[in-house]
């Protein structure tokens, strides 16, 4: 128990309150959209907004309740800064990878993602990482594009190779 006090991080209450607020906001947006479209009970049954509007109200009440409970909760750590750094070691490359798919297609991005991850976090040798990455990407290409004929996003490199 003494350890946890020494550890620093984002407080659980902050996250809990933020999430509850976001949900409150979302429920208001959902309610607005459904209410303006028609959320009544017409002669032949409920309109398209009937259920979503009511669900939005329930969600609002539920989130409000969570918000109040969180206000009175004991202080706890949601995630320590140390943990956050570790998570971002995956999350940030993942986001860059996803951006890369739009630009370079999925094959090149995947190869880079895998190779860099192996060298950086797995401390494999550069040669071994590159070979694994290329092998993986070629296998993926064969399975999806050739055997199952599922086209995946491609970029300028594939265009150059005429694939």
């Amino acid at each position: 128990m003494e350890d946890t006090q020494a550890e620093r991080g984002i407080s659980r209450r902050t996250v809990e309150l933020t999430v509850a607020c976001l949900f409150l906001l979302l429920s208001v947006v959902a309610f607005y959209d459904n209410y303006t479209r028609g959320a009544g009970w017409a002669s032949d049954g409920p309109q398209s907004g009937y259920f979503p509007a009511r669900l939005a109200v329930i969600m609002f009440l539920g989130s409000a309740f969570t918000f109040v409970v969180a206000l009175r909760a004991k202080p706890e750590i949601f995630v320590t800064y140390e943990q956050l750094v570790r998570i971002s070691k995956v999350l940030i490359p993942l986001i860059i990878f996803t951006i890369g798919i739009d630009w370079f297609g999925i094959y090149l991005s995947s190869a880079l993602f895998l190779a860099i991850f192996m060298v950086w976090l797995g401390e494999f040798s550069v040669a071994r990482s590159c070979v694994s990455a290329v092998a993986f990407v070629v296998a993926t290409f064969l399975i999806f594009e050739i055997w199952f004929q599922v086209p995946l996003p491609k970029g300028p490199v594939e265009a150059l190779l005429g694939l």
Partner: protein
Amino acid sequence: MENLNDLLNGFYVALSFKNIGFMIIGVLLGIVVGVLPGLGGPNGVAILLPLTFGMEPVSAIILLTSLYWGALFGGAITSILFNIPGEAWSVATTFDGYPMAQQGRAAEALTLAFTASFIGALAGVILITFVAPLVASFALKFGPAEYFAVFFLTFCSFIGLGKDKRSKILVSLCIGFLLAAVGLDSVSGDLRMTFDNPQLLRGFDFLVVVIGLFGVSEILVTMEEGLAFKGKKAAIDLKVVLKTWASLPKYWLTLIRSSLVGLWMGVTPGGAIAASFMGYGLAKRFSPNGDKFGTGETEGVLAPETSAHAAGTAALLPMLALGIPGSATAAVLLGGLLIWGLQPGPLLFVEQKSFVWGLIASMYLGNIVGLIIVLATVPLFAAILRIPFSVVAPIILIICAIGAYTVRNSGFDIWEMVIFGIIGYIFKKLDYPIAPLVLAIVLGDRTESSFRQAILGYEGSLSVFWSNGLVGSLMVIALLLLFWPIVTEQIAALRRRRASASSAS
């Protein structure tokens, strides 16, 4: 007895070297398709379909149904190893399968899943063999009101009241329903909650959301604790298979119950996805170990797998007997039957006897072949957990991204997956239950539209939900299940009071 005779003839048709060869190829391809999220049974069948045009119809359908069995088996693999449901119907398998893998019992969990699948499928095939016409006509009794009642029953059996964090269960459920409602409303033709955004127009696909919520978020949680997988010490020899089998007989009740749930959902057709949730929910409700569900309980793997496969198999029945597809894969197969010049429907059983019974016989054989193949691969798959995390993690993420993309061929879905990965992480840390959200996303839209279709057909009156015995009893059972925890609580309290009263006297 006539059926048995026909079946024997069927075995005669199906048991050629060529057809067994097609079974093996089909099962292997099916496993590949099932393991990769995004590539599903329908994809695999649809892609192979044109290749079968030149084949004999019996061989062609054996190849395709074997692929279907393979996909059904394969869906469980990634669910258990990496918490990524390869198929929508294996979501419920992750609830206990993944914790088992984390405890080093991956091989056991895989064996359980495969065996349960086999038992479920067997139940489905037996149903098709003996009572096809009878059951088929029962399926016709299901109008929109009955559909709604079945979905309602699924929700009630899975969620139920009681337990803590009720407000969070409710919020999670509402989010699921609202996400399911985004996009084109099939009853009114309105666009709901799309805010004129072309990406929102398509709505949220269940698989993309699940890949994010389960797969990606799991990687984040694992990273939080450092660069390692927990399941490293997984035993990887085939003895595990035998040991696991030895433990199975004591779960006979769960297996039978889940099979019945699956058969029911496959025929009606609530579908394999709903069946897996319902099977899990009921097992949790009625098992003596119900409280431990979610922590790596044997029955938590057995129940959803048995139900899903019983349903997946039984879903082929309405297709053969009535010409209506019970599932997306069945829909593609239906197209295939037409292309091979076979007209599905009751007449198929009369006009194409050798085809139908060859197919049914191949269902028995295909499942046995499938079981042998997947059991043989258990050590292989369990060994994947020994690969260093720094290699497996990016590969899982790449496969998740490909899976998310292939669901609808949309790059935006990869972003959706990343975002739901973060949401899943926060949900787990804040104790928001994910399962209600997932269930609502899967069934929310269908539940709502069947409700509204029922009301439309009944001129706006709610009385449609107790207008006949079938829908009325379904609704009553659903409500009973919903309040079951409260009922059992009361009974227990009553017993305690009596016990204390008797000890006092």
